[in-house]
């Protein structure tokens, strides 16, 4: 017989059983004396570990860079899903320390759905002494010291009762994220290096999630351990009660509407199901929008890892398809090596890990990852990751050494990291990274571009650069993050053209940096716009630091002689123009400096956009702004907000600001010019005050309302103001030098026009439209002298179209304090 090397079957070794770098406690256990923890240790639900007085628990640092799906940190951790009772005593405390004595060298105790009772205990050297992700903690008479974080509580499902405990000499003492329940009594929280208590809550945007349903009830086929030959087609309802293998020369085709359920088999009692699919040939799971395919647990009480995975191994001779599928309750929803896979329009939810792969060619589009412990983990692959939503996972995306295009994704509200990119060749652009604990972490990347992203409102740092060289960070909005906007350590990146504002502590915090920070807008950050914490100088020329003296907002050698100097000269006198990088405003945002809107931009429903004093919003030709959320453009008399064309001040150079159901919106001390319609308002409770609306085709048009316009100018427009069934009050304003001052199309009785100067509008001060058959209340205005009726087109000219009641009227102009123009 000829020699054969038929590979494949033993690739399964890599996948069966689920090999873990950790171990689970399989029965109730007592620890005493010296306990060495050398690998991740899990106390599963239903198990209790009790630690006796005087015990020392020494935890070895992990040498592994990966995290198995059932664990949460890449450091060695003790994870509590059952119960941990630590019974130290006053004379014989329990100690948790690192085996090598190095700071932050083990993860700490992570309470993830379990409960922990601790007394007379010292916890040191951990990343987080105690991290309550979900569950309860009762700690008394204890010490949390020399950790990066002493105690972290996250979310409303976490609670802690902390009594007579000292939390000191950590970087951060107590961190409270998203309103956990903390009862605290007689504690000492002080001398923590950066902050004793950091509390942060972020907005949950509750995006609309894909959620596929199946109506199939009849169970067609049951598979145990099987090997398929040729092409096998699944449809209807299929139950897998073993390991189903599709060898190299076979193919599994799953038709639209199929439901694949996996029963739970847990032979090693670690709580993780083992049944799954092993595809070495190919898989085509091609659902449709109306008939999705569902992979899920067959158990009545479905958990997060009732079954293993759809494993695709060594399958890259064609593209495997996972389309319009919903994959849930798995240890790893999809898991592939050496495979070519497209995941499109798919829901990945409630898994320990959503997708994990390496050495593969992968395209993931328009898919939603939510409620997974970790959404996605990938290495050594070529990846296109576009238009996906990663929401409310514990950990978001972890990329290692990939050739990566990651574009137009929303990575929001994940409990820990949003996006972590380590090494590889990443291009990360036009993503929203918002409301995570950490936003974007870039580690050891030699190449890469991170441009045009919005990285906002993360609890801690927006962007962390740790060790990257030769990368570009440009055109990003880095805003409103809890601690630093950008945190830099051992990096030589180019940081250029970003808006870095409104972050809780430093706009940019530098430990060590040999790159350049130039041509950014860096302003209004909590402590400093730039803070240098290392000994080396930092090049930061040609940035705009807002209206304040930059020297005051930069912390460097001038403040502490042991620090490096910030070389900030020359200082820009005007902001850099920042093009808004996304097609929507998807998270609350505050605009400052100069913002260019290149194409039509929508402020999504539920989103607040604030435009701060002195800001210019410049529209490229034809571009506009649609507000479905709420806009608050509040300038100041000496620092108005400007809306204008980017390159040309002709009439109609840009489209309009359109408000749709944008209740609570405000424009005050604004100048709006060169638009087709400056403001176009539908069904919105709106206030316009102290605004100049100049040289547009139309100044403002509105329907419904209520709209209040006060102390504003409408000047040089074809039509100053146009109403259609508008409920409005126009008062103390100047409407002049338009062709038509006010055009009332329909239902004019809903308007009240009072105490204005209506003057010099070339056709009419008010023109009543053909569809209006109601009288209009326009008393007590000044009409420029003479007979006001001669400046009004109403039923006196065209019977039946309604009358403008202008009597009484003023004999002289009102003294209106003019807003900025």
């Amino acid at each position, binding site marked *: 017989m000829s020699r054969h090397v038929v590979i*494949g079957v033993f690739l399964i070794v890599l996948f069966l059983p689920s090999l873990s770098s950790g171990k689970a406690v399989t029965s109730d256990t007592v620890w005493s004396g010296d306990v060495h923890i050398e690998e991740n240790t899990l106390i599963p639900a239903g198990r209790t570990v009790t630690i006796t007085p005087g015990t020392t628990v020494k935890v070895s640092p992990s040498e592994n860079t990966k995290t198995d799906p059932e664990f949460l940190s890449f450091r060695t951790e003790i994870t509590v899903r059952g119960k941990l009772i630590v019974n130290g005593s006053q004379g014989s405390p329990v100690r948790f320390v690192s085996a090598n004595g190095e700071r932050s060298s083990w993860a700490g105790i992570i309470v993830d759905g379990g409960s922990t009772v601790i007394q007379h205990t010292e916890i040191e050297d951990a990343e987080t002494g105690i991290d309550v992700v979900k569950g309860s903690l009762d700690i008394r008479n204890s010490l949390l010291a020399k950790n990066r974080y002493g105690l972290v509580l996250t979310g409303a499902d976490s609670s802690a009762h902390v009594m007579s405990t000292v939390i000191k000499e950590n970087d951060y003492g107590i961190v409270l994220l998203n309103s956990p329940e903390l009862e605290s009594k007689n504690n000492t929280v002080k001398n923590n290096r950066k902050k004793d208590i950091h509390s942060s809550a972020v907005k949950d945007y509750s995006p609309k999630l894909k959620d596929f349903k199946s109506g199939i009830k009849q169970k067609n086929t049951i598979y145990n351990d099987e090997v398929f030959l040729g092409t096998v087609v699944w449809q209807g309802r299929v139950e897998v009660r073993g390991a189903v293998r599709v060898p190299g020369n076979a193919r599994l085709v799953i038709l639209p509407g199929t439901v694949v359920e996996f029963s739970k088999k847990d032979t090693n009692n670690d709580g993780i199901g083992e049944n799954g699919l092993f595809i070495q040939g190919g898989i085509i799971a091609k659902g*449709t929008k109306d008939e999705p395919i569902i992979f899920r647990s067959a158990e009545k009480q479905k958990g997060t890892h009732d079954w293993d995975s759809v494993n695709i191994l060594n399958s890259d001779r064609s593209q495997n398809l996972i389309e319009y599928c919903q994959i849930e309750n798995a240890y790893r929803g999809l898991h592939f090596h050496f495979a070519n896979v497209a995941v499109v329009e798919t829901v990945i939810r409630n898994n320990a890990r959503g997708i994990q792969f390496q050495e593969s060619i992968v395209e993931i589009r328009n898919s939603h990852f939510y409620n997974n412990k970790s959404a996605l983990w990938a290495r050594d692959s070529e990846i296109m990751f576009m238009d996906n939503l990663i929401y409310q996972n514990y950990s978001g995306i972890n990329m290692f050494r990939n050739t990566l295009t990651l574009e137009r994704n929303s990575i929001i509200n994940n409990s820990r990291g949003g996006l972590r990119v380590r090494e590889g060749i990443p291009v990360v652009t036009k993503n929203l990274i918002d409301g995570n604990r950490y936003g974007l972490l870039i580690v050891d990347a030699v190449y890469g571009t991170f441009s045009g992203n919005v990285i906002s409102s993360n609890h801690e740092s927006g962007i962390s650069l740790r060790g990257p060289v030769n990368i570009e960070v440009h055109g990003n909005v880095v805003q409103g993050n809890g601690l630093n906007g950008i945190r830099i350590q051992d990096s030589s990146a180019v940081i250029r053209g970003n808006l870095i504002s409104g972050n809780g502590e430093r706009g940019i915090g530098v430990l060590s940096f040999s790159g350049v920070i130039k041509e950014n807008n860096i302003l209004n950050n909590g402590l400093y716009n730039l803070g240098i914490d290392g000994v080396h100088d930092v090049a930061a020329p040609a940035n705009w630091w807002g209206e304040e003296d930059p020297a005051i907002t930069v912390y460097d050698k001038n403040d502490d002689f042991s620090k490096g100097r910030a070389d900030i000269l020359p200082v820009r006198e005007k902001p850099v123009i920042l093009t808004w990088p996304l097609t929507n405003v998807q998270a609350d945002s505050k605009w400052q400096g100069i913002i260019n809107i290149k194409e039509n931009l929508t402020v999504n429903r539920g989103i607040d956009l604030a435009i701060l004093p002195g800001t210019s919003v410049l529209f490229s030709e034809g571009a506009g702004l649609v507000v479905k959320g709420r806009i608050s453009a509040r300038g100041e008399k000496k620092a108005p907000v400007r809306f204008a064309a980017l390159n040309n001040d002709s009439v109609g150079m840009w489209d309009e600001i359109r408000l749709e159901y944008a209740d609570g919106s405000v424009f005050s001390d604004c100048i709006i010019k060169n638009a087709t319609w400056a403001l176009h308002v539908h069904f919105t409770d709106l206030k316009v005050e102290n605004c100049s609306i100049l040289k547009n085709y139309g100044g403002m048009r509105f329907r419904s309302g209520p709209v209040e316009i006060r102390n504003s100018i409408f000047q040089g427009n074809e039509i100053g103001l146009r109403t259609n069934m508008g409920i409005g009050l126009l008062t103390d304003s100047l409407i002049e030098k338009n062709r038509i001052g006010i055009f009332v199309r329909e239902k004019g009785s809903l308007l009240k026009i009072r105490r204005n100067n209506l003057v010099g509008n070339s056709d009419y001060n008010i023109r009543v439209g053909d569809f209006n058959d109601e009288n209009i209340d326009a008393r007590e205005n000044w009409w420029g002298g003479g007979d006001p009726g001669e400046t009004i087109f109403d039923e006196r000219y065209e019977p039946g179209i309604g009358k403008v009641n202008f009597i009484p009227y003023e004999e002289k102009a009102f003294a209106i304090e003019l807003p900025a123009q």
Partner: protein
Amino acid sequence: MKKHQQQRILQVFCTALFVILLTVGAGVQNSAAVAEETSVLKGMVSDVEDRAVEGAMVYVYTSPEVRRAAEFISAPTNKDGVYSLVMPQGQYWVVARLKKAEDFGPLMPGDKHSGDPEELELESDEAEMNFVVADLKEAIRMKRETMERPFKITGRIIDEDGKPVTDVYVFANRSEDMARIPDYVSSWVSEKGVYTLYVPSGEYHLGGASRFPPGDAYTLSKQLLVKIDKTDVDIVVKRVVKK
């Protein structure tokens, strides 16, 4: 007792023993050596560099499912990589493994294996099967060295007016016969009608379909010989039925 009677009794005994062994399952070494219609399976186990492998064992199964206890297992190969095994004639599936730890149980990292089982019709007195065993890394390296990567075809799927069509996908079939599920299919196309399809080298009939499986909701567009990556291969669909 007549000779043929003795043979018959022996045959019945051996058959019974064989059934028992099948039932009991694993780990019976040279178990059928006394059976009448037995054969010798022999051969050599080597590694990917053609060196003899000592200590490997050959596992024989009565079905292609080999993730279970074997019906027969050889003695470990000698220093020349040679093994031999006596067993009843019949149809088998055979693999070779070199395990560092126990003879049984799943393969562990570093263990070596010959891959998918080889089918064996054991009818004559003697048969020979040679195996090459490799560990995971070796196998993958070999695979990637020997395996042809698929070629990438990209383009748009458009109607006769050149406008992008959505809610469709592209397929590539080795024949014009569309009675079955196509050999290769793309994902449902984006709004711009852009598709990507991966196929091995060969000649294909390309088309677009609006339903999966296509049934009659497809259009064959063109024939294409694929030897390299191809771009801008537009697929014109004349008749698209909504899925």
